[in-house]
């Protein structure tokens, strides 16, 4: 009971038979969505990105644990997570950056590249929803530091078609690091 309340709604399975062919029109449309989204976020068009979100959004990033190979399925923790957001809390994160003069964690902003790859798209049992898996490698440069923070992750998204346009309804971000190597997740993944 408690576990169910703490954790996000489980994602539907990725069924091989429901996979859309790479290069098919729907696949290309979704790839466009992911590329456009990356461009918006890289260029701080945050309010615009907010318009891509559905009002029932669930957006979360589980913790990872180092466990033995036999316990690989226990390496994801979805009670306490690094991010566990709703539509309202995501808009607050955006507003903090766009509407204040004191979002110091990202002001001055990081220079960020979101490199999207390994995109696979699945139909789901809802006619208007796709499950989309992608790899994301984020490079983040702060101030005059001579290193990049690297944030590699896999994203599991649900994209929903609303009045012809694709919207983000669900995103789960599986980070590779147990101890996150960037000083905060003040950027959107």
């Amino acid at each position, binding site marked *: 009971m408690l576990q169910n309340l703490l954790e996000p709604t489980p994602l539907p399975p990725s069924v091989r038979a429901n996979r859309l062919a790479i290069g098919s029109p729907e696949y290309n449309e979704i790839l466009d969505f992911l590329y456009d989204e990356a461009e918006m976020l890289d260029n701080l068009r945050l309010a615009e990105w907010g318009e891509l979100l559905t009002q029932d959004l669930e957006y979360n990033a589980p913790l990872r644990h180092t466990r033995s190979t036999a316990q690989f399925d226990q390496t994801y923790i979805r009670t306490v997570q690094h991010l*566990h957001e709703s539509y309202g809390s995501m808009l607050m994160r955006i507003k903090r950056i766009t509407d204040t003069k*004191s979002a*110091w964690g990202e002001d001055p902003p990081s220079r960020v590249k979101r490199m999207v790859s390994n995109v696979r798209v699945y139909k789901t049992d809802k006619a208007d929803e796709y499950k989309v898996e992608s790899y994301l490698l984020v490079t983040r440069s702060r101030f005059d530091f001579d290193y990049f923070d690297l944030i590699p992750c896999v994203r599991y998204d649900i994209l929903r078609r609303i009045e012809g346009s694709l919207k983000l309804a669900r995103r789960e971000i599986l980070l590779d690091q147990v101890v996150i190597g960037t000083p905060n997740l003040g950027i959107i993944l």
Partner: protein
Amino acid sequence: MQKNSQRTLADGTRISDLINLETREVAMRTLSDPELYELEMERIFAKTWVFLGHETEIPKSGDFMVRDLGSDSVLVTRDKDGINVSLNVCPHRGMKISTLDCGNTQAHVCIYHGWAFKPNGDFIGAPVEKESMHGKLLTKEQLGLKKARVTIYGGLIFATWNIDGPSFDEFLGDAKWYFDTLWCRTDKGMEVLGPPQRFTIRANWKTACEQSASDGFHVLTLHRWLSEVGPYRKPGSEGGGGDLTPEMYGSEVYTAHAHTMRCIELDRKIRRLTGKDPSELSVKEKLEALPPPGVTQEMIPELLRNLSEDQLKVITWRPPQVGNFFPNGLFEFVYIPTPDGVIGVMALHAYVPKGPDKLEFVNWILAEKDTPPELKATMLRLGVQLLGTSGMVEQDDSDTWPHQTIAAKGAVSKHITLKYQAMYETGKPEGWPGPGDVGDGFTKDDTQWRWWQYWHELMTAES
């Protein structure tokens, strides 16, 4: 205070010269010096009690987790007799015994040569028993893991290598009277809502920890968004918007071993919720109007039973909301205004030193065991949104500490000083029943200065 001013660094600087006890200044160099760091690991982290986690993280016999006690990895385990903390290093050839984050086992077997240990650290044996792989010079009793001394307090796990040193209660001192109102207020106590968040910040551990000693001033500027668009934006009836100053009034407590806290006044919130003058309300009425974080109406009789009249007075007037366990623990028991009412968030942090220029931020989120599940879920979400890895409050801190650490290396800037010169001049507030040194009114620097005084005391102590 200056027990041994002869203690010197390689360049001839005496440690006692890094702090000016009269003018309340600290040489910036302390925030990055590698030599000081090594000394801190020995003189502070190997001497004091250090916070490692919560007992509800390892509920079953055989459960274990790997944590850091200062610069050393330790195994924190549960067996039928309770919680154990041992060095996570094999006494045979120095391999790390467990390379996992957590698990359950009755035998920790080193993968290198197969030496095996019980959860309590006792040596079970080495492979090929009849060939005496561990030799005959030492007995099995002598070949166990190095064991730390452990205390469980209100569910929190503390350990120390200082086997014959002060008791945990002595270490807490006057802070215990206040901490009991947080950790020991309900019958069943608290639980973690999951494992902690962990992330790395390229900053010296003291940048985070001197702030954790109840720095109020930084909230006004570094966390100003809280009043611009965040939860502390004041309602129109109180002038609206922008200014966090009202949140800075209350009492600040600082104790001999540098455990400190900010006890922020609740009167405005209670007046807003009840429409009444708080001074005309009883303790019970105030608890019912604004229960502490994670506490429901049903649990209020437990508080009335478990806490003294004086403690109840403090938690319904100016409860401890943020503070620290010296050397590297922080707690937050904050009351967050939301559209759905005031929601409490409870979190614990450990700022684990990882070298002179790096720390690991570990963030636990907690609730009372008896907090209803729906409220636990709400507290957890709000905690994640405000604190820790992605927290809209603490991401501003994580971006500040690295700059201080870098600045502390400059040939010139390393000699400038950190200043703690805003001082309480009034003494305890009238009618304040709690122990320790207590300041009244707007936040000051005394709590953080106490942190540095105790740092200095330990760093210059005789043994």
